[in-house]
Structures are given as structure tokens and as C-alpha cells.
């Protein structure tokens, strides 16, 4: 009985934010308050957990909690009905490690007497006391992008240096809610050195990590002695040492960002040496260490993306020497093997999950399908999106499946998840319903409009885009040579005033969908920007996206040749 009250209390806490709003419908000058927090999605095909076959049924949610899922669910009067007859419902996806909505905090000002060989922790990127919640904005465009891809929760990692701070689990619910599920879930760490000061390289970072860890554990010893014995000098525990305490006491894991097998080995060797709890995230190349991951029993979050195939596309058919052809074959082999990696984790029995960091939300389903086409079972893929991250994050009591009592997080599609052409129609996160536009199936042939005519896109387009930095605009010039498109784009110079131009590449035009990339050099980084959108007559609407920064709406009009000419 006591337990139940506790449970109810906890769930109550989770949803308290809008219970009050829903129950006392007072005047609402904004007009934004929703009429009800109760929804029923009726007669849909439910996939309640990985490996379970789809069954027809109804899902009833109330105030952020699933009240029932299956057949024979009683629908109360206040429920808003969503007809689910042709829809497919899955548990909401959970991102094991993300940085959506997280903005890197400003670097603190360097003290005048700072020596690069011994900088203060805060400046050297050692800030374990920081919480990612101070860097998070729930109405950032990336949050919307990932929600649209079906994600309803994310463990977000802070931005910063080698130990940037503590992670938190967020629900991707209504931007007006607090959306926090759990604070300080893990300590983020990586092998990035700080620029121009100690520790500047991975070898320095590993040494500094040992130093910070050992001193934090001695600081606890000192505090203990001070508490139990008189005559002991006052502990002078630093913010770093206090920030590390939960890790040293093994209450929370270190979540280490690693990309390849060597970094995985480095993180595991630190863990073996010092004894902390470890989660690995951001894995890209890990085939040689699958046995080690298995035997070390370390949870892993692999990157939710597949390798860029530009190196494959750049391979020339003719006029290359035999030796180069042999090298081409090895790149192809490496590429194919990279797509198979996730399935090798499944074969080894490793319950992995995904990380969305450095991945593009718009390509997430494509990446998943590629993994499934290359041997990953649909069951394991769904588990990696739902139940596995829930248990890695320790939240499987409230998330991961469609079950009575769990949080109302789900993704509702037009077809079953891994089918070609399946589109996300609604996402329910934290009991809030988000609706998405369903696009009609585009015609298969290149550049043909639905009525069979050919859409011409060559010419000069004028575009405007809305970014957090303000409105931006310029010209896109598209040319067609044979069946290939090329051209250029102008945009505001990120490092000054005026406009600069970059060539565009990877242009594809299929159905009404136009997509291309271009590179922007900004602050020493080379960013690849993707623009994709739907062409309708002489106008285009779509998004401009950059992997690390999210996506922003863009509109363009064909200026010349104008249709009126």
C-alpha cells in the first residue's frame, strides 16, 4: 500500500505540471491551453514491446500516463479520440545520449595571471559540477527535429571540455513544461583536450582524469575523517572534487564519448584502473572490440547514423590503375562492414542503444533501415530505440514499452516502422500530442511531377531562412548538365559582412523533392549544410540543416527564369 502511494506520488510529480492546468480550466488569455489531457487512439495496430506482433487495440492516456493499451479499454467522456484505424503505434523512442537543445556555455574569462601549464579547472574544461539543464532549451529546433523522428526522451549531455558536467534525462514534451525526468544521471567525459593549455591532448586528458579521480576519492576520505575525529584540519574540497563525488562513490556512471575501438579500449582501461561505473557513447567503429565490450559488461550507445558514402560515390569507373581499384575495393568492404556492425553487436548478445549526437534527425529512419537491411533484426532495432536505453538509463519502470502505468510516450506511424514509406504521423511525448504532416508519395521517376510533366528547377532561386541568429538569405543557382545538377549558393559571410558563395554538391531531385549540400567555413570548422525541400511550381519550402546545430525553415522562389516571362 505504502509502495503504491509512493508510486502515485512519483507519477503525480511527473505530471503535476499540467494536472493543475487541465483540472481547473480557468480563463486562458493565450488560448493555448489544451482542452483535455486525455486521449484515446482507437483501433490502431499496437506494437507494445520489441518482438511482439502488432495487435489491434486502443491506447488510452491521461495526464501523461498510459491508462490502458490493448482491447477492451474503456474510453471516458473527456477523451479526445484519435482514429487510429490505419495507424501503427510503437513505444516512444529513447535517446541514450543526445545534445539536442544544448548550447555550449560561454568560456569563462581567463584570469590575468593564468599559466597555460596549470590553468584553473573551469578553464581547462573540467567542470563536473555543471548540470546540462542549465544549457538546455526545450524549444530548440533540434528537439523538434528529433521528436518528429519519433524520439520522446533523451539523456542530454552537457557541452564543454574533457569533463563538461552532469547529464539529465529529459522528456521531449510540451516546451512550456519543465520536461525534466531525472537530474544528474551520469557524468559526461571525453578525450578532448583544451586548446593551448594543459591537458591539450588525449594522453594529457587520461593523466588528468586519473589525477582528478584520485584526488576526489582522497577528498572524500578527508571529509569522512573530519566528520568522525576532532583535531583534523578542515577539508578544502574543490568544486571539481564535490562534482566527482557521486562518480567516485559509484552512484552514477561516467558516460564516455568514444568513436573508435582504440578510444573504447582507453576508456575501459581507465575504468578498470579506477573502478568507476562506465557507459560508452558515440561508437562508430567498434567491430574489433565487440568481445571486449561483451566481457567488460559496459553498456554501449552507438551513433544513430551510417557512414557517409561520399568516398564510395567518388570512386571512378574508368581510367584508374589496378592498385587503386584494389584500394577502392577495400573502402567498399569497409563501408559494407560498417553497416553490419550493429548486427554483430546483436549476435554477440549486447543490448545496445543509440546516441543521437552528431546524427541528423532527418536521416535517422534511413540509418535504421540500413542497419536492418544489413542483418540487424527488427526486434533488436526496436529494442535499441526503446527497452535497451530504458534499462541502461534505469528508467524501464516508467518507459520503454506501451503498458498501463508507463509514461505516455509513443510514436504513431502510417505503416509499420521498418517499411519503406512509413511516415511519422503523431508523436505523443509526456502525454502531449504532436501532429505531423503526411507527405503524399512522390512519383518514382526523377524530376517528374505528379501529373507526369517535368518540373524544371534550373535557374536562379532567391531564398530566405530563419535561424536563431536571425534571418538569412541569398541566391541559389542551379544548372543542369545531362542528368546531373550543379550550381552555387550565396549566403551571409559567417566571419564578416557581405555575402560569399559556395559550390553546391550532391544535388538530388526526385519527385518534387530537391536536396543538396554545401560547405561553410566558420571559426575554423568546416560545416556541411544540407538544404532539402519540396518544389511546387516556382516556389520551394523545406529545411536547412547542419548536423550539430539542428535545422531551420527555408523558403525559396525561382527568380529567373520567372514563370511570368
Amino acid at each position, binding site marked *: 500500500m505504502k509502495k503504491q502511494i509512493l508510486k502515485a506520488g512519483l507519477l503525480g510529480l511527473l505530471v503535476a505540471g499540467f494536472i493543475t492546468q487541465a483540472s481547473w480550466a480557468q480563463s486562458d488569455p493565450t488560448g493555448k491551453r489544451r482542452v483535455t489531457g486525455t486521449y484515446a487512439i482507437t483501433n490502431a495496430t499496437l506494437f507494445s514491446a520489441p518482438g511482439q506482433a502488432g495487435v489491434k487495440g486502443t491506447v488510452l492516456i491521461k495526464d501523461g500516463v498510459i491508462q490502458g493499451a490493448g482491447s477492451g479499454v474503456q474510453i471516458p467522456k473527456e477523451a479526445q479520440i484519435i482514429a487510429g484505424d490505419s495507424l501503427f503505434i510503437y513505444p516512444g523512442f529513447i535517446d541514450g545520449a543526445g545534445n539536442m537543445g544544448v548550447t555550449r556555455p560561454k568560456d569563462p574569462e581567463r584570469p590575468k595571471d593564468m*599559466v*597555460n*601549464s*596549470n590553468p584553473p579547472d573551469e578553464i581547462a574544461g573540467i567542470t563536473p559540477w555543471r548540470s546540462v539543464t542549465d544549457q538546455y532549451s526545450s524549444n530548440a529546433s533540434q528537439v523538434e527535429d528529433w521528436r518528429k523522428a519519433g524520439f520522446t526522451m533523451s539523456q542530454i549531455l552537457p557541452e564543454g571540455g574533457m569533463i563538461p558536467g552532469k547529464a539529465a534525462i529529459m522528456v521531449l514534451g510540451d516546451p512550456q513544461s519543465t520536461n525534466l525526468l531525472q537530474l544528474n544521471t551520469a557524468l559526461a567525459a571525453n578525450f578532448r583536450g583544451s586548446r593551448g*593549455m*594543459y*591537458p*591539450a*591532448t*588525449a*594522453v*594529457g586528458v*587520461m*593523466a588528468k582524469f*586519473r*589525477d582528478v579521480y*584520485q*584526488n576526489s576519492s*582522497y577528498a572524500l*576520505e*578527508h571529509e569522512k*575523517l*573530519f566528520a568522525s*575525529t*576532532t*583535531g*583534523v*584540519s578542515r577539508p578544502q574540497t574543490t568544486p571539481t572534487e564535490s562534482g566527482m563525488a557521486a562518480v567516485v562513490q559509484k552512484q552514477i556512471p561516467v558516460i564516455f564519448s568514444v568513436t573508435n*575501438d*582504440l578510444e573504447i*579500449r582507453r576508456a*575501459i*582501461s581507465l575504468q*578498470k584502473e579506477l573502478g568507476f561505473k562506465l557507459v560508452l557513447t558515440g561508437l562508430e567503429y567498434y567491430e*574489433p*572490440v565487440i568481445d*571486449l565490450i561483451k*566481457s*567488460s*559488461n559496459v553498456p554501449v550507445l552507438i551513433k544513430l547514423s551510417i*557512414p*557517409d*558514402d*561520399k*568516398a564510395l560515390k*567518388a570512386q571512378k569507373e574508368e581510367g*584508374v*590503375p589496378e*592498385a*587503386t581499384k*584494389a*584500394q*577502392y575495393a*577495400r*573502402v567498399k*568492404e*569497409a*563501408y559494407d*562492414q*560498417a553497416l553490419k556492425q550493429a548486427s554483430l553487436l546483436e549476435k554477440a548478445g549486447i543490448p545496445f542503444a543509440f546516441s543521437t549526437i552528431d546524427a541528423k534527425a532527418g536521416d535517422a529512419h534511413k540509418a535504421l533501415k540500413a542497419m536492418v537491411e544489413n542483418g540487424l533484426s527488427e526486434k533488436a532495432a526496436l529494442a535499441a530505440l526503446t527497452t535497451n536505453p530504458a534499462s541502461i538509463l534505469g528508467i524501464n519502470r516508467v518507459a520503454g514499452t506501451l503498458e498501463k502505468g508507463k509514461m505516455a510516450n509513443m510514436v504513431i506511424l502510417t505503416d509499420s516502422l521498418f517499411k519503406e514509406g512509413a511516415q511519422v504521423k503523431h508523436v505523443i511525448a509526456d502525454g502531449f500530442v504532436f501532429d505531423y504532416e503526411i507527405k503524399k508519395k512522390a512519383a518514382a521517376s526523377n524530376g517528374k511531377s505528379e501529373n507526369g510533366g517535368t518540373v524544371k528547377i534550373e535557374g536562379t532561386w532567391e531564398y530566405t531562412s530563419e535561424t536563431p541568429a536571425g534571418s538569412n538569405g541569398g541566391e541559389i543557382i542551379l544548372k543542369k548538365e545531362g542528368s546531373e545538377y550543379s550550381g552555387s549558393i550565396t549566403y551571409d559571410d559567417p566571419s564578416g559582412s557581405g555575402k560569399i558563395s559556395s559550390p553546391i554538391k550532391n544535388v538530388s531531385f526526385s519527385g518534387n523533392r530537391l536536396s543538396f549540400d554545401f560547405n561553410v567555413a566558420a571559426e575554423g570548422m568546416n560545416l556541411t549544410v544540407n538544404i532539402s525541400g519540396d518544389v511546387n511550381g516556382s516556389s520551394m519550402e523545406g529545411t536547412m540543416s547542419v548536423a550539430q546545430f539542428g535545422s531551420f525553415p527555408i523558403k525559396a522562389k525561382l527568380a529567373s527564369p520567372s514563370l511570368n516571362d
Partner: protein
Amino acid sequence: MKKLTLILSAFLGLGMNLTFAQAPKGNILIKNATVLTVTQGTQENADVLVQDGLIKQIGKNLNAPAGVETIDATGKFLMPGIIDAHSHVALDVVNEGTSPITSEVRMKDMVNPYEIGIYRALAGGVTVSHAMHGSANVIGGQNATLKHRWGSSNPADIIMQDAPRTIKFALGENPTRVHGRGNGIQPRTRMGVEAVIRNGFNEAIQYKKAWEAYNAGKAQKGNTLTPPAYNERLQTLVDILDGKIIVHCHSYRADEIYMMINVFRDFGIKKLVFQHTNEGFKVAPEIAEYTMGASVFADWWAYKMEVYYSTAFNAAILQKNGVITSINSDSAELIRHLYHEAAKTQRYGGLTDEEALAMITINPAKQLGLDSKIGSIEVGKQADLVIFDHHPLSVYAVPQMTFVDGVKYFDIQKDKDDQRQIVSATEMVEPVYLRNAEEDDHRCMQDLDAYYEAFQGAFMGHKH
């Protein structure tokens, strides 16, 4: 008891493969070679039997035990695997160049077993390399000694686990440029370098005392002593003072070499090897008396001011003065033909074959504290071996096969075009065309360089 250990290791040491990697060990019989033992003379038409990675027998008419492969080396030369006492091959990071002392960093953390330089070194007969921290700092990081077991993806497999600890020190222009001129901190001069070392060791002595006092007092009843700040940087210097680590010191000038000898004598440290040591010939008797020797280039100098006063006779002069002398590469290119580098001591200084070969085998083994395990062909030593087609000191010599612990990692007959262990899925491959001399040197284009330069100057905003 054994069962208990097994059960415990099953529970606790699931990641055993990381720390206790079992290096492969081979069995082989090499027949009819000219065996250059380096320490025990040369045996003509002799056989060497390797079992379980160790040299079991050297002699004539040896028979291969059942299942042991025989290699016919008639007309060929067998020598101990070459040891390079100064290398940076297979390291992902070389310098943590942000602090004058970084003794806490470990090059073992940065070993990359995929680096193609390992295979190239094997093709040059090098079986062991000393993967060192760079010379940006006065006291750099702890080095790794590598065994070139090419083909493993696990760094632990190529780290020589039974090698003693070593560390890099550096004197002269590099640390004074990086820290003094670059960052405005000590050391700005050679005097500063000495001060950094002395201050470091004095602090280490204080550190050691503080921990000794704490460890002695903490178990006492009513103890009020608290743990001192932990500092692996100082702990490593304590280990040097306690003789647990061999110091390999980058040095050029005679004055700074002599300074370093005096500093180490003051602190009672005996394990010291000089690296580069271009002016070592001026202080050869002192190096011989007080240190574990010098590791030098055969004939490489004049790349900065402090390296001008140099001679190709350096190695021979040091050797004749009783200095343990080795010849190293410090380069991914030179490491492929250290046998040529060693042969230069015969041209400049007239060393014997055995003395010259010792420069790349038993002498570097001594400097790494490994002469009981490797560096010569002797019964009981680890079977790191190279077969050459000619005498290794001949200009015609080409390594044919290279073995580490009796396992063959290089065979010139089986040398593939593309030896890379891993290939990136996203890296483009550009065709490589070998330079066609005839096309490049078309006579009709001869002597036009000046014209092109003028053209560029006039029309392309040439700025020099």
C-alpha cells in the same frame, strides 16, 4: 587454489584480455644460416631452434621436433632483431607540450597497433622500438617499449609488458622554445632547464615524505593526519629517484650533457641514457663513467643551432671510450634501414662488424634494461630474429624475414601491396601514378621554369 583463482578471475577480471594479453609465441627451426650472435661471435652454417618463443638451441645439424616448421637459410644471414632506442612510431599522441614537466602522461595510453610504420619497421628488421614522448618538455611522459607484433588490434599485444619503465627528458632548445619563448614561463634558458629538473626532484622528495608520514600515521588510533594531495607527476619523479625508471634524455651540447650528469649525481640517480648526444664525443669519458650510455644518429645534424657541432665519428668515439652506444632512428623512414645506419660506423671510425651490429642490438637492449631478454642470439633469449640475404652491414643487404618471439611477421615473399590493417569507409582514394621521368622531362619544356616564374609574377600576384 588454482580453481579459486579461475573463478575469481571469471568474476572480477572479465576484461583480462586487456591487461593480460597473451602474446603469440612461435616454434621454428632456422637451418644453415650464418648466425651473427653479436655477443658470442659468428657461426657459419649453423641452425637456431626456437621453442615457445625462446631460443632453445644454437648449433649444427639440429633436428626439428615434431610439428616445428623448418626454414632453410642456406647462404643467408641471421641476426638478432634490430632494436630502435628512439622512435615515435605507433603513437597517436607524441607531445603533451603544455607543461615543463608532464611525467604523469603515459605513452602506453596512446599506442596505435594499426600504424603502418610498424610493418615498415619489420621490413627493415626492427622488432623492438622505444616509443617515446616528444621533446617539448624538460621532463616529458613515460615511454612505451613496443614489440612489433603486427596484425593485432589490441595495443596491449604490442606493448612489451616485461620491459622496464622509461621516461623522456629533454634539454636545450626545444623546451626553452616551447615554454620559455612560447609561453613566457620557466625554462627560458639552459639554466632554467636545470632549475626545472632540480625543483622537480626536490618537490618529489617532499611529496614522498608527506605520503610516508601519512601512511605511517593513518592506522594509528586517533589519527588526525589527512591524505596529502595525490600527484602522479611527482610520484613518477619519486620512482625515478628510487631507481625504478630509466631516464632517456634528449640532449645535444656537451655542456648540458655534463650538467645533467652532475644533477643526477647530486640526486643519486644512476639510470640515465642520453639521446641524440651529438656533442657526446666531447664528454665521452664522463658519459662512460656515470651513465647507461648514449643513443645517437649515425650522421644527422644541422637542423637547428644546437646541432651544428657534430661529427659522423661520434658513435665510434663514444664506443672507443667505453660508452654503451646505440644508433637510433627517431624517424619512420630511418627505422627501415638502421642496419645501414650502423654500417656507417665502419666507414667513420672503423668499428668491427660485431661492434657495429651491437649499436642496433645488444647496446640499445642494455639502454632499455632488456639485455637479459633480447639483443643477441643466445640460448634462453626471446627469439626476435631477422634473416638477411647479404651481410646486414653490406649496402646490398635486404631483410627477408622478421620474427618476434619466434613468430614471423614479415616475409618479403609474401609482402602484399596493401598491408593496412584497417581502411576507413569514408576516406577517398586518389589514384597514385608513379612519376614518369620521360614525360616530366620533355625537352620541349626544358629551361622554361624561369619563364613560368616571370609569368606568375606578372599575372598571378606572386608574393615572395
